[in-house]
Each structure stands twice: as C-alpha cells, then as structure tokens.
C-alpha cells in the first residue's frame, strides 16, 4: 500500500471529490495561487480553475457565510480556515447559520458544507495560535465534527464529510500534516459517526481522537513492554459520537482514560466520562481519569509549553493510576 502524508491524503480527498462532483468547490485564504497555507490544496487551482478554487480576502465571517449561502441553494463548498483560531471570527456562521438552517426552516434548507483547517497546538506558536476547539464545536446540534489522526482516516473522513448533506467540521492537525501512513490506491470513504478500535488490549481503554491518537499509540507501545495492554478507541467523529464503541471497550477493560488535546473544563473528556458512568458504572474498577491541556492559555516558552500539553508521560501515569499500579 502506498505511504503518503496526511497532507497528501487530504489533497487526494479534495481532488477526488472535486472530480466526482462539480458542485464541490473550495474557498479560503491562500487556497489557490499560494497552494494553501499548509499546501493541502496544492495543485487544485491548476486542475480545477479559479471558479472552483477561490482565493478569498481575509474575511472569515464573510466567506464562511458565502459558503453557507451557496450551500443553501445547491453548491457543496469546502471552506478552509487557515487555522481554527481564525475561525472564531466566523463562528457565528457555523453556529447561527449552518447549524440552524435545517431546523429553523422546518426541514427545507439543508447546508451541505465542510468547514476545515488545522486545529490545536503546533510548536511554540503562543496563546492565540495554539487552541483545540473540539468541545466548542461538538457542543452544537446541527453539525457533525470529525477529527482524523492518520492519513488514512483523514482521506476517508474528508471524503465522507464532503458527501454529507449536513454541515461537517473537519479538525485537522497542524502537526499531523507531515505524518505518514498507508493509504490504499482504491477509493474508500469512512462513514461518519463510527469510531475505530485502533489497537486491542484488554487492560485499559484510552478514548481519544485526532492528534492524540498518535500519543495513545505510543503509550500503548510503551505499556505493552510492561505487560499492560491498551484498547485505543479512536473516536474519529466527535459528533455524533460512537458511544457503543466506547461502551464495548470499557465493558471489556473495566478501566478508562480519556485523552484530549483541549482544555479540561467542559471538554470532550467530560462528556465521554458522563457517557461511561451512565452506561458502564457496574463494569468500572476505577474512576475514569482524564488527560488534557493545562487549564491556561498556551505559553510560548518551550519548557512551559511542554508541561502544558497532554503527552505520553501524563497518559501513562493516568493509565497506571486507574490500574492501581505505580
């Protein structure tokens, strides 16, 4: 199987879906002539022309709204945010327009749109450029939220997102764009709303998604050496969440750690813990623990940033704690 980067996988997804359906277009800052701030849209302008690969001004609120309006009348826009930090300027269009349109129109106007771009911290970008917005977005009924961690998942989920008739938020990882993985030559789509058991263990479950999947896999590798075997449940889609996959794993392992990139308070992990305590209470041998970013804006200083971020060491400590090992 070919090995390609996460960036190339996303690029393939865009190219394939644009070839498949001429209602699909991509709009955002620097997506065309510049080939994308992170080169995800590389070559698309050349291939599809400027009507379908549209360089917008720096106007997130405006072009997100243009996407929604065009989707209401039949186009299928892919709106690229240079990063999700800047998408905050457009959050009104995601939350008040895209997510509400179908409902408040009594089912008449669906909005088949994808909002995508890198989410979460990279390295030493400081407070305003290092934020993970999963929980903000997943809070909203009326949209779907996906967070792929591997090239294979990135391609399959983005393709599914573009084909979906609803608004879908795709949270990519800036630190993931260069990561590599196997992506088959043949066409495939990963259904939204299904988790993936990335690794089977049996001693403890780690529920995670996105960039943290890589951390969870490292943790699983390391702990295997200590004869602790981990089930890694990669949510893939955060909303709607595949709760059955979580329950199945936790009922088996009876212990769980939830690992997420964002902040603790009202985070994704809080929701996962709630699902687990409601449905797996009798199976649990220990309280479910969470690993997340420190409850502070991201510091710039290298050392501080490192201790602010969730990582393998913190996750290992949490797993050992729920297993009463140390």
């Amino acid at each position, binding site marked *: 199987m070919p090995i390609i980067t996460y960036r190339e996988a996303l690029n393939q997804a865009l190219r394939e879906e644009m070839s498949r359906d001429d209602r699909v*277009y991509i709009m955002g800052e620097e997506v065309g002539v510049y080939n994308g701030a992170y080169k995800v849209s590389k070559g698309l302008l050349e291939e599809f022309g400027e*009507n379908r690969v549209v360089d*917008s*001004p720096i*106007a997130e*609120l*405006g*072009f*997100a*709204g*243009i*996407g*929604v*309006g*065009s*989707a*209401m*009348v*039949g*186009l299928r826009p892919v709106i690229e945010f240079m990063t999700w930090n800047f998408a905050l300027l457009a959050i*009104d*269009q995601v939350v*008040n*327009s895209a997510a509400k*349109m*179908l*409902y*408040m*129109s*009594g*089912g*008449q*106007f*669906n909005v088949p749109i994808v909002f995508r771009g890198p989410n979460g911290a990279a390295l030493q970008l400081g407070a305003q450029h290092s934020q993970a917005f999963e929980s903000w977005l997943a809070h909203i*009924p*009326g949209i*779907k939220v996906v967070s792929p961690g591997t090239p294979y998942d990135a391609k399959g989920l983005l*393709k*599914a*997102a573009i*084909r*979906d*008739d*609803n608004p879908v938020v795709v949270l990519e990882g800036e630190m993931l764009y260069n990561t590599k993985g196997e992506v088959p030559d043949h066409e495939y*789509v990963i*259904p*939204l709303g299904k988790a993936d058991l990335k690794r089977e263990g049996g001693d403890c479950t780690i529920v995670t998604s996105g960039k943290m999947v890589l951390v969870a896999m490292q943790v699983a590798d390391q702990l295997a050496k200590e004869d602790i075997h981990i089930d890694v449940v990669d949510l893939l889609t955060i909303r709607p969440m595949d709760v059955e996959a979580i329950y199945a794993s936790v009922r088996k392992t009876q212990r769980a750690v939830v690992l997420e990139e964002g902040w603790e308070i009202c985070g994704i992990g809080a929701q996962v813990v709630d699902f687990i305590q409601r449905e797996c209470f009798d199976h649990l041998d220990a309280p479910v623990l969470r690993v997340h970013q420190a409850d502070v804006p991201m510091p710039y200083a290298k050392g501080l940033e490192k201790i602010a971020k969730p990582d393998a060491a913190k996750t290992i400590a949490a797993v050992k704690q729920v297993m009463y090992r140390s």
Partner: protein
Amino acid sequence: MASKKKSDAKSETRTVRTAGDKTLDREMLHSMLLQRRFEEKTGEAYALGKIGGFCHLYIGQEAVSTGIIGQLRPDDYVIGTYRDHGQALVRGITPRAVMAELFGRIDGCSRGKGGSMHMFDRHTNFLGGHGIVGSHVPLAAGVGFAIKYRGGDQVCVCFMGDSVVNIGAFHEALNMSALWKLPVLFVIENNRYGMGTAVERAAAVDDLSKRADGYTGMDGIVIDGMDVHSVREATAKAIARARTESRPSLLEVRTYRYRGHSMSDAVSGTYRSKDELDEYQSYDPVFSLRDAMVVAGTMTVAEWDALEADVAATVQDAWDFADASPEPPPAALYEDVLVDTTS
C-alpha cells in the same frame, strides 16, 4: 450630540406621487394593503398570546417589499431579517402559512419551528428571515456566488435594516460581491432606527448608500421608500444590472416603521416623537397610492372598499386557518437537526 437628519425620507428623495398603469397599481395596492392588514392582525394575535417570542411588524415599510419583490422572477432569491412577514407575503408564501408559522403550528411555512423571525419557503426561494443582525448578508453573497458558479441569470435580493451597515459581516460581503461581481441587490431598509438608536447616532456616514463607494463597481442608490413607484423604478435598473452584467448594487430605501421595534417597544417615546411619527404617516405608502389612483380615476371609492373587504377576509381566513392548525407533535422535536445522508 448634534445630529443632522440627513437620512430622512422627507428630504431630497421625496417624490411626487402619481398613479401609473392601472393593473400594476391595483396589484401593488393589494400587495401593500395585504401586508398592512396582516400585520395589524398579527399585532392583535400577539396581544392575545397567540404569538410568542420576538415579533417585529413591518407596518409603514410595505412599499419596499412590494416595489422590489413584486418584479422578481420565481427563480430569483429573497433573503432578509427577522422583520420578514411582509416580504414573505409579497414573495408568495400564503397568508395562511405565514400566520400559522407565527402561531407556531405545523402548517406554518417553517412547520412551526421558525417563528416570526424565521420564515422560510423552498417553493418561492424565500431563504429566510435571519435573527443575527448582519449575518445573512454574506449568505446573500453566497447565493449570488452560486448563481454565478452555475452561470445562471437569477438575482438575489437581500433586505436588511439600517443598523447592518455598521457591522463587519456587511462589509465583508459587499467587498467580495463587488470583487467577484455577484448578482446581488443589497437593500437597506432605512427606517431611521435600529431599535431605539437613530441612524445618525450609529453610522459615521451621512448617506448610508455611500457605503457602496468603498467597493468598486457597486452603485449606491437612494430611494424614496414611501412611494412604491419610486422603489419599483429605481430597483428595476439595479435588477437589470445584476441580471445582465452580474453587478451588485446597494440600495438605501428610506422608509419608516410605524410600530415599535418589536412588540415590547412603545410606538413612540424616548427615542422618537409622536410628531415625527405623525409626519411620516402623512406620507403613507398605501393610502397615498390609493389617493393618487382615485384622483387619476383608476380606482373608485367603491372598488377600494371592495379591496379592503377582500383583504380583511383573506387575513381572517389566515387567522382561522392558523388557529385550527395543530401544534407540531412532540416527535417533531428531534426532526430536522440533520438530514439523512448517504456518504
């Protein structure tokens, strides 16, 4: 702060009202009168508790919707704000469906899930009343983008209040519409106030139409919104430009709302005087057309009375229909959050 009343419907834009083509005048009179009586009935229903939530009446502004929407093609698009009842009616959503929506009933145009501020109708390309000030302006640009993308010759008309010209979304949308030459009419219904804030207390520009000057290729036009003929004529040119040259326009239509901002707001009080209201009402768009027609001999007093009776019956029928329509069943709660999709 000293304020010049520059954006004033009674200043330089005031035109002398005359009657025009008899058939068209009758249609327009009917259209405006329907909105007037419908909104009065809406006010009554609200007072009786039949309608809940925020409710913004359109009374006084009828010439704007009638003059503009009346000349669109069925495949054109209309989008606007929460002050949407009149526009919905002129676009052809039935009075029954609009009233049922106001009552929150299943037969409403948004199946009772939108309410006063969110009238939608797929069949008439009515893309909604929107409740966040300014947010729908980019949506209109998006509709224009889609029209152009498909190589169509439709236009999108976007109604907005005067306070919208001060919000970022408006400028982002206008810039991209001019940049990409999108077939959109941005129609500012300048009714002199955003809630209780007079235009000159909010906008650092004397004529709102001048906002177009910042965008190359976009015409800014001032229109007397109390005269339906003026609205129709000025808009016709902008529609033609959008259709044939794919060019956006910014229309400032000077109008006036007779009622409070919403049902909880007094008709006059702290921010505007009774005198001012009286003065505007003397230019009433509905009655001045009627009077001009009577003078021109294109309508008799008896015909007017018949029109009134006809409209009253329509509005009463809408009420009765809405009142009899069931509430959405509890199962509707979880419907229409997402569409089923095959990915």
